[in-house]
Structures are given as structure tokens and as C-alpha cells.
């Protein structure tokens, strides 16, 4: 009955809501941000076209568990059939341009898609000019695995095939980058893999920072779970990597060089290439937006969400991209209907696994202030530093549950 009501409402909606013709929105990028936005816009009666380069989306959350041999790759893959079935036009092509004046998106085959407003959620692009020695060819030897897919499988295979007794080297970039706690979750799960499968091996984590997300929780877990396996080197101790050499699988720091049996380089990043092409990225490589409407500060009529934006206190996470998508879609509907945009609040929750059945989390509530998304004071924070195993197990279970819910919400 409820489902019937919703289905009928969806059919009946478009006409009465907007005075003129049904407005058109083109969404570029069908990841956690873009696919959510496309659904929200479509359900509000907007004629929505989703442009996504790939026919299959491969999710990054839980890809660290794949790398550590705890999970199969199939669980990371999602398609767009449900969005199509709902009535969203899904076009599997690369967008090559966004013309905000002519109001159209250009695709790689030359097709143009007209819009009243556009939304970009292109995720990240690896900066192959960001770390000397690390180019596309180097990524085939020293995988980043920071965009899930073949890179994830390559790193998993390298770990699986490496001889026991070797050193795995992880290179962690300075801020900002996709998924702030992601490198430390990965370090934890690789350490778990080595400890249980290749116990004479070591993991060396070289970090370009001294401070990171959920740090005290990670460090406490490492000290108790992986004291003989994981060595963490922060910036202050020479952790910053200045150059890499794929031929010898060698990395250079301010203090010396280190060879690895496996080297995972998480390189610097910027907003996905279409952001530059559309003119919505600034010189930092990321996109300044209004924190209530997510409209670009550089190109009116074009909204940007997800990893690509400068979001202030809000991290670059799948949860955040999904939350921003809902808020941006509501704002776009309001603007298209000639209504004011309401001041939003947004949530974020990021779970990390430090071992199977050992989860920790960081959460936050955000609102616009001084032109950015800022923490609502008094809210948010991490899991407690001291907690019984039952709490850690519950958070690991909730992490899995979050993934099931969000992927059902976005692609199901």
C-alpha cells in the first residue's frame, strides 16, 4: 500500500510541481554522489539524465577487505539497471565538457545533453604529476588501489603472491584526499593479512602527515594487535616520500630509501577531470561550492558534490557524497521551482575495520557557516578509546550494515 502510494505519487508528481515544462537536470558521475542525486531528482519530478563512463560501478568502501583477502571483488560491483527501471535515463559515456552558458553537457561521441541545471559528482583523479616517479606506468607496478577495480585486484594479487619475509611499503599522501581514515584501515588490514598468512613479513607505513583521522584508536589497535608487524613513520620521523622508482620498487624519503616487496602508493589527488573542463575547480584542483545548495562558486547553474568539492569540515566519504546528493537535489528542486534554498544540516559516519570484527567510527554533524560546511559544536567524534570487544564487534557489524544499506539506497 505504501509502495503503491509512492509509485503513484511518482507518476503524478511532475506536472503540478513546476509551473513550466518539466525541468531537466544532467548528472555527471554515477558513483555514491551522482547516482543518489539522480534518484532524488527523478523522484522529485525532474527529467534526469545520468552520465556515467562505466557500465559497472566498483565501490571503494570495503575494498581494503578485498585487498587483505577477506572479501571477494564481486561484493564491490553494482550496476545501473534499477535506476533505468525507475525511469532515469542512464548514458554510459564520458562527459567531455559542460557549457553553463549554452546549458549543455557534451559527451565523448559528440552528443549534447541540454539542461536547466547540472550536477557533477566526478570523484577524484589521481595526480600523476604529484609525486616524482609515479606515473600511469608506475601504478601498474606500485598500485594505488585508490579507485576500486583492477587496481584493487592488482594490489590483492601482489600481497597474495609475495614471499613471506618481505616488506610491504605504504605511501600515504598529505591532506586533502579521498577517505581520510582509508589508508589507516588499509594498513590495519594488510597487517592482519601479513600476521596471519605471512608472519615473517613487515608493513612500513610512510606518512606525509603527523596527524590523521581516528589516530588514537588506530594507534592503540596497532600496538595491541600488530606490534611486530606494522611500523608507522609520521612526517616528523621522515615519513614523507619525495620520489618513487617503479623499476626497483624503491621509495625515497627525506631520510633515506626503502625497497618493498610490495609498494602501495596512495598519490595526491584532485577533483575528477571534468571539473577542470567545466571550470568548476579552482587552482587547488578542488571545487569551491555554496555549502547550502552545492552550486559552484565559479560556474552558476552547475552544482558539484562528493569527493570533488572543498567541503570544509566534511570529509571526502561515500556517506558524505550520499548526504550531499540528497541536500543538493533538494536545493536544485527548490531553485528550479523558484523557491528559496533552506539551510541544511548533514551527517557523516565513517567506519573503519582494524581487524575482522573490530570496527571503529568517526561521525559528524555539519552545517553551513562562513561559506563552508562546519562542525556543529558538541556533536560528532570518534568511538571511545577504551571499549569492550563487544562494542568493537558491534561497530564492525554496523559497518557491514551501513554498506548494505547505502548500496541498496544508491543502486538497489
Amino acid at each position, binding site marked *: 500500500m505504501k509502495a503503491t502510494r509512492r509509485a503513484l505519487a511518482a507518476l503524478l*508528481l511532475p506536472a503540478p*510541481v513546476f509551473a513550466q515544462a518539466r525541468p531537466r537536470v544532467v548528472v555527471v558521475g554515477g558513483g555514491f554522489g551522482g547516482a543518489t542525486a539522480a534518484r532524488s531528482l527523478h523522484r522529485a519530478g525532474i527529467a534526469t539524465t545520468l552520465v556515467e563512463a562505466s557500465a559497472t560501478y566498483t565501490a571503494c568502501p570495503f575494498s581494503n577487505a578485498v585487498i587483505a583477502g577477506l572479501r571477494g571483488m564481486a561484493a564491490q560491483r553494482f550496476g545501473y539497471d534499477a535506476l533505468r527501471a525507475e525511469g532515469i535515463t542512464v548514458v554510459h559515456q564520458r562527459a567531455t565538457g559542460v557549457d553553463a552558458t549554452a546549458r549543455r553537457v557534451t559527451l565523448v561521441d559528440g552528443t549534447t545533453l541540454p539542461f536547466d541545471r547540472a550536477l557533477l559528482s566526478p570523484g577524484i583523479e589521481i595526480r600523476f604529476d604529484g609525486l616524482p616517479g609515479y606515473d600511469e606506468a608506475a601504478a601498474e607496478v606500485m598500485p594505488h588501489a585508490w579507485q576500486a577495480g583492477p587496481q584493487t585486484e592488482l594490489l590483492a594479487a601482489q600481497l597474495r603472491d609475495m614471499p613471506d619475509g618481505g616488506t610491504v611499503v605504504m605511501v600515504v599522501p598529505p591532506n586533502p584526499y579521498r577517505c581520510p581514515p582509508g589508508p589507516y584501515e588499509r594498513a590495519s588490514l594488510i597487517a592482519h593479512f601479513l600476521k596471519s598468512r605471512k608472519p615473517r613479513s613487515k608493513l612500513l607505513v610512510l606518512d606525509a602527515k603527523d596527524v590523521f583521522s581516528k589516530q588514537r584508536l588506530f594507534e592503540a589497535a596497532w600496538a595491541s594487535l600488530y606490534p611486530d608487524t606494522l611500523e608507522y613513520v609520521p612526517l616528523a620521523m621522515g615519513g614523507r616520500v619525495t620520489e618513487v622508482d617503479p623499476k626497483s620498487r624503491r621509495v625515497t624519503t627525506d631520510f633515506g630509501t626503502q625497497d618493498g616487496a610490495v609498494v602501495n602508493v596512495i598519490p595526491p589527488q584532485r577533483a575528477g577531470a571534468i571539473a577542470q573542463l567545466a571550470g568548476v575547480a579552482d587552482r587547488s584542483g578542488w571545487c569551491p561550492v555554496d555549502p547550502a545548495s552545492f552550486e559552484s562558486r565559479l560556474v552558476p547553474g552547475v552544482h558539484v558534490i562528493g569527493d570533488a568539492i572543498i567541503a570544509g569540515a566534511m570529509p571526502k566519504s561515500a*556517506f558524505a557524497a*550520499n548526504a550531499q546528493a540528497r541536500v543538493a537535489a533538494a536545493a536544485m528542486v527548490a531553485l528550479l521551482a523558484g523557491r528559496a534554498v533552506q539551510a541544511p544540516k548533514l551527517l557523516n559516519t565513517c567506519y573503519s575495520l582494524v581487524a575482522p570484527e573490530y570496527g571503529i567510527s568517526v561521525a559528524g*554533524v555539519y*552545517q553551513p557557516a562562513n561559506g563552508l560546511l562546519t562542525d556543529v559544536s*558538541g*556533536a*560528532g567524534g570518534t568511538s571511545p578509546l577504551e571499549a569492550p570487544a563487544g562494542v568493537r564487534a558491534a561497530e564492525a557489524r554496523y559497518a557491514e550494515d551501513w554498506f548494505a544499506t547505502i548500496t*541498496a539506497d544508491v543502486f538497489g
Partner: protein
Amino acid sequence: MRAFALALLMAAPAFAAEEAPPGASTCLGCHSPVRADAAIPPLRGRDAAAVAAAMREFREGTRPATLMDRLARGFTEEESQAIAAWIVR
């Protein structure tokens, strides 16, 4: 049945125009309205007053939580009630 359809017709535009109150839509990242087997409790169909009361207890720290205490502290009583009313629909 016809009256029912008519009621639907009249309710539809309001449904579309009615925006989620601040914060509410982003709860759906964890609280699924569609999954039946979820460990994180679905909230659709629950009693709004009970959801608002739970938010208050999380905010005040009187209800055991792994994470909801940290999120609930970001909302006033009034905001929590608005969210509760929206999320149970």
C-alpha cells in the same frame, strides 16, 4: 477506490513540495527504509514520538549507543522532533 485515488492526486503535490527538515534525509545513509534484515534499525513505520524520545535520550547520554549519541547531539529537541516525524513516513 476512486476516493482513494482522488486523495492521492491531491496529496501528491504537497508530498513533492515538502522538503525534508534539516538533517533528516541524510539519516537514510544508515537507516534503510527498504531493507528488512538490517542490523541498524529501520525507522519507517515507527512511532514518531518514540523516535524523538530516543533521539533525546541519545542526546542526553541516557540511552546506550555506539554512535547515535554523537550524532543526536547535533540537533535540538525541535529539530529532532521534525526529523522523527519525517523519517517514520
